[in-house]
């Protein structure tokens, strides 16, 4: 009975977990992660805005082998 009562909460938690992992995998969470990173808290000259970060991130990612045969 108690398990049944807990089910919606557990399902919501699992869905939230899955969604946050999916956002991390596809890159949606990259900017939030950047804002939380140590570097932005430890005296970076300027924090990039979302647009600048996106362009900088794609430039960096595609300047080294990141897709294989």
């Amino acid at each position: 009975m108690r398990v049944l009562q807990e089910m919606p909460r557990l399902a919501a938690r699992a869905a939230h977990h899955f969604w946050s992992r999916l956002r991390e995998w596809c890159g949606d969470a990259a900017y939030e992660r950047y804002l939380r990173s140590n570097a932005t808290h430890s005296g970076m000259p300027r924090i990039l805005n979302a647009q600048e970060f996106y362009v900088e991130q794609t430039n960096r990612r595609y300047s080294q082998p990141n897709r294989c045969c």
Partner: protein
Amino acid sequence: MKQALKFVAWVAVALAGASALGAIALHRGEPLNATWFVVAAVCCYLVAYRFYSAFLAAKVFALDDTRATPAERHEDGRDFVPTNKWVLFGHHFAAIAGPGPLIGPTLAAQFGYLPGTLWLIAGAALAGCVQDFVILFCSIRRDGKTLGGMAREEVSARGGLIAQLAVLAIMVILLAVVALVVVNALKSSPWGTFTLAMTIPIALVLGVYLRFIRPGRVFEASIAGVLLVLLAVVAGQWVAASPSWAEAFTFGGVSLAFIVIAYGFAAAVLPVWLLLAPRDYLSAFIKTGAILCLAGGILLVRPQVLMPPLTKFIDGSGPVFAGKIFPFCFITIACGAISGFHSLISSGTTPKMILREGQARLIGYGAMLLESFVGVMAMVAACAMSPGVYFAINSPAGIVGATPEAAAAKISSWGYALDAQTMTRLAHAVGEQTLLNRAGGAPSLAVGMAQIFSNTIGGERLLSIWYHFAIMFEALFILTVLDAGTRVGRFMIQELGGRIWKPLGRRSWLPGIIIASALIVGAWGYFLYQGVVDPLGGINSLWPLFGIANQLLAAVALVVATTILLKMKRLRWIWVTLVPMAMLIAVTMTASYQKIFDANPNLGFLSKANQLAAQIAAGQIPAEKIVETQRLIFNQRLDAAVTAVLAGMILLLLLEALMQWYSILRGQPEVALCETPYIASRWTEGFSPGIAHGDD
């Protein structure tokens, strides 16, 4: 009690795997069900992961979770990003899974299902996964250094330069061969060409959306993009049905080759956010979805494997490519069992994102097992069609003829029944004018996938939609490899060229960008053109060249890893990298020798060139074909020279490494291990960086 249960469970898994492998290996006569392949592969992977990778992690590498990884030491939210292990597994798998594990096994099915399946499973467990795992481990211990960087530090400066040049040369061959696969798949196919062409404006719209409207919102943009691409697949049938539209999207091989070359140049020069990145997002979603669908389809449909375990072509006389099982089955399978290119990913972004050393086992070893499983599924899809149909699709016109009647007569004479109407009916059912002579593996894999998908959903009615979905899926992520590879090749040329002429090394200098892009596109474009005009279909010469190049890069990675293990004083366990390395060197050197010097003109580049030259000298070539034949002679000699250069580079690197090993074994003091010093992790006990940092 718990231990005893565990023991019994693992014995059961091992026995199930051994029984399934036995069934695959010993079964003769009646068709075999694909379930055996799935059981054999999954059980072998489970045993390999549970025992062999654990042994590597504990005894050989001594992974240490108390040691801070580069992601912790240099966390910057950009390159060095601590990431949840399952998210990173997904990233790493999406990066390593390319067209290779799909195309290679499809081509290797020419030998029958047995040799390829055995090598896919054993090769991955004992070589491919070990390579990915060891390089990831070495790179983690060196602040995420690249393979070239590690070769320079641990082998020699010359070794580093050789590795860098080898990567560039391999990339040129890789890009040419994947472009050829796309060209052969889209030749005379207005439906396929339209669908793929539509992915470009879709990607451009996505690029603008992600740059200006909702920066970085990849998920929502990709889902919208995927829906638009699926709409384009459906709309393709109306294009193919309309005479004027069909004509506009119908191209021959040479025209398509030039279109792909122009596309590659544009992708290398245009801002990355505009075309390359959004295409890659689309490709990643569709690739993951299609692979999951294929796995689900095989499990639901459980198709019969109609290809025999061994075909008559194990003698080296195959129509898809020439050469015997040893070494050409290994060379052809390539990425599904071991891929040198993975070492670039394992020493690229992944080591900078890993949270703890212990997770390298799941990500390095585990992701490669999954890639091998993709290869097994491709083998099942290719072998589920009748052998006659398989050979009709994959054999060049120069061998089986260009009409259904000629192909049916020739293929039936080999002992694989085929009537001309079967090919005509099949082409009609998948919405194509013809399926004959589509060398390259993509169309036959698409037919196999479409048959599996249509047996799951839609039946015969949806066969054409599924076929073009499969073609779009293959072509889309092949083009993603092409544009991403061209861009990386451009940077490599700029970096190497910058040593000779400084301005070329500046990444933002426009003339430098254009020169370097033109050089890399010109290099792979030349090989692509050569493949398109080759009367034997191009795949016959280019895929083995690609396989040799790829496996040589794997040998480079294993040479570097062996050197590092020796320096770590793991002499007792050195066989874990030394044996696969020796195997790869034996395979690639034999294949290189045969491709250059074999007396059979279908196999040896030089004997083919000599045969053509003799035909010109004997007046057997019509006057109007002499220039074309002379070009073919030049191309054969060029292929021989490229193969020789690749083999030579690896032998040089091996020589450098042997001298280094000698010094290490003699205990010379100047041979030091270039590992980052130990720093204790803050994240091991009691500390959790939380969901934000991707911890569990």
